[in-house]
């Protein structure tokens, strides 16, 4: 369904008139594959390049290097009409449910907008589809004449999801769809997403900084740090037996009721994405770092079947 190959994205940074032009390296050589019907979880701290990667996948951020293949076609090599057609097959649910809906449009118009843009639907067809979608995402038919300001964050997110699936897309990019919601609403939306996945046979790219969500929903997972994957593999395996020290510290940071567990505290800050240090990007904060880590950049290697890590000294 989706294949990303060696993707790199950097942004030029404004510098002084005479100083050298510098670049923020937001994504550095990421490759991933998502099969049809699968849910791929993308985790990482804020600022690690998750959203930039998503932007590239949906064709909104031309990568500096590498390719995005959607159903076998190189997205950025397609002609404009083919590109548009391909893009209609992937839709996105945004993190902030408040800025995702135009405050001047009523719900009917918001949800029907993609149909309106594609064209070829009669007014009745659109209305029927909107009712169907409202039902699907758990809103009532009367809601279609109300405005975004009348809804809570969770309800808005439902509207956003309804809009995203209105054109029967095959791939849904969920960019932290529940991060901005209350805990109780959070669980409802997660359930809704899982139900939709099952009912409609969708493929998800699920982005989150919440490990629990990723664990619940995804089949495979990629752990991102400073623009590249630290670890990549089947969710169950990565969570049960993480290879990379970074994954370890992430998992250890998840709050549990287990009093016995000593939290592993990661010290220091994330290095600047403008001047990425040589060697392993996590070396400056890694509790297991060796001299080699400061010099040589580790590559993703398969340490267990399907489970890859970019580490010289993985925890096995």
């Amino acid at each position, binding site marked *: 369904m989706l294949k990303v190959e060696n993707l790199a994205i950097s942004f030029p940074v404004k510098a002084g008139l005479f100083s050298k032009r510098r670049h923020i390296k937001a994504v550095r050589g990421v490759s991933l594959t998502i099969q049809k019907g699968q849910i791929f979880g993308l985790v990482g701290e804020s600022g690690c390049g998750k959203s930039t990667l998503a932007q590239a996948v949906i064709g*909104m951020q031309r990568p500096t290097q590498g390719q995005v293949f959607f159903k076998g076609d190189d997205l950025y090599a397609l002609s404009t009409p083919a590109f548009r057609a391909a893009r209609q097959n992937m839709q996105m649910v*945004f993190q*902030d449910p408040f800025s995702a809906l135009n405050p*001047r449009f009523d719900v009917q118009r*918001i949800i029907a907008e*993609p149909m309106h*843009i594609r064209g070829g639907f009669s007014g009745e067809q659109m209305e029927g589809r909107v009712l169907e979608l409202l039902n699907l995402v758990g809103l009532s038919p009367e809601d279609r004449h109300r405005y975004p300001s009348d809804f809570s964050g969770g309800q808005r997110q439902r509207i956003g999801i309804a809009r995203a699936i209105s054109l029967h897309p095959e791939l849904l990019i969920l960019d932290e769809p529940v991060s901005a919601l209350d805990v109780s609403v959070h669980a409802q939306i997660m359930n809704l997403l899982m139900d939709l996945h099952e009912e409609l046979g969708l493929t998800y790219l699920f982005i989150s900084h919440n490990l629990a969500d990723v664990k619940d929903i995804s089949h495979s997972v990629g752990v991102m740090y400073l623009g590249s994957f630290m670890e990549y593999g089947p969710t169950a395996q990565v969570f049960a037996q993480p290879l990379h020290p970074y994954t370890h510290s992430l998992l250890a940071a998840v709050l549990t009721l287990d009093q016995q567990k000593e939290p592993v505290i990661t010290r220091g800050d994330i290095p600047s994405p403008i001047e990425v240090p040589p060697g392993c990007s996590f070396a400056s904060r890694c509790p297991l770092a060796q001299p080699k880590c400061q010099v040589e950049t580790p590559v993703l290697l398969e340490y267990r079947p399907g489970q890859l890590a970019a580490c010289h000294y993985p925890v096995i």
Partner: protein
Amino acid sequence: MRTTRRKNNLLAKIWHHPQGQVGLILAGLLVFAAVAAPWITPFDPYDVTQRAEKGLAPGWPHLLGTSISTGQDIFSMLIYGARVSLLVGIVTGLAIAFLGAFMGILAGYGGRFWDTLIMRLVDVMLVIPTLPLTIVLTNLFGKSYGMIIFIFTIFGWVGLARVIRSQVLVLKSSNYIKAAQLAGASRRYIMFRHILPGVSNLLIMSTALTSAGIMVAEAGLSFLGLGDPTAISWGKMLAEAQSGGALLFGHWWWIIAPGIGIFLSVFAFMRIGLALEEVFNPRMKRSGMLLRLFKSINGSYIQEVFDAMDDRPETDEAGKEAAP
């Protein structure tokens, strides 16, 4: 039902706003006075042949007396003056809204080339001293209100274009526009369905506020004798009162009358603008921001006219505040 209430027209909303109501009533009266002037004025304000009636004090039938040198009926002149003020104010306000919206959207959504071009043009326009230029242009091409509207528009769109551009930049990065792009929306679709409606509030509001500002500026230019010499306007009435010796003879009503006219028309449109601002943005803090917007739209112009009118040395304060 909510929908019907949302969609109901803007006039009703302004009407239900305490400040807006005052503005609407006043503006309505002024428009009526301007349109019906030939029928409601008791005398012909252009009649300068009433030698026997010169310099009368307010009374009957000359409600506000007559001018000292020519015996024109001041009340009738006052009503006729509304025509020039409203016409110049409203037409310029609309023209500025159109030009400002066009330039602002082009700069914000037309790509880097247009953005750079228009913003540099804005920078240049902002530093051109408009009053000397107005004097030159009106003397070259004839003193008419068409010319004044043209000049006000050419220099007035600048501030609005900046405001619109920044609003477009905010809208452009919003997620609902991204969602529309994902669904395959063309640039045209996004421009007309999302961006233009997104700045329409700003446009409507600025039209009301700009009109108010232009009315003051117009009075200033007419006072300086740069308006149409054959038309009757409040600014020109003030100039005539000054040259005709109103102060010397203590004919205060001759000065107060056009002053009230100018005040009422500006007040009415400011009220409407303020009401619109609050209708569109109920949570807005009312302090300062509006004044700044108002000044940034046409402040430099008004300031210049005022500075030319009295001999005060130019205070830098207003200029500083106007700068965003």
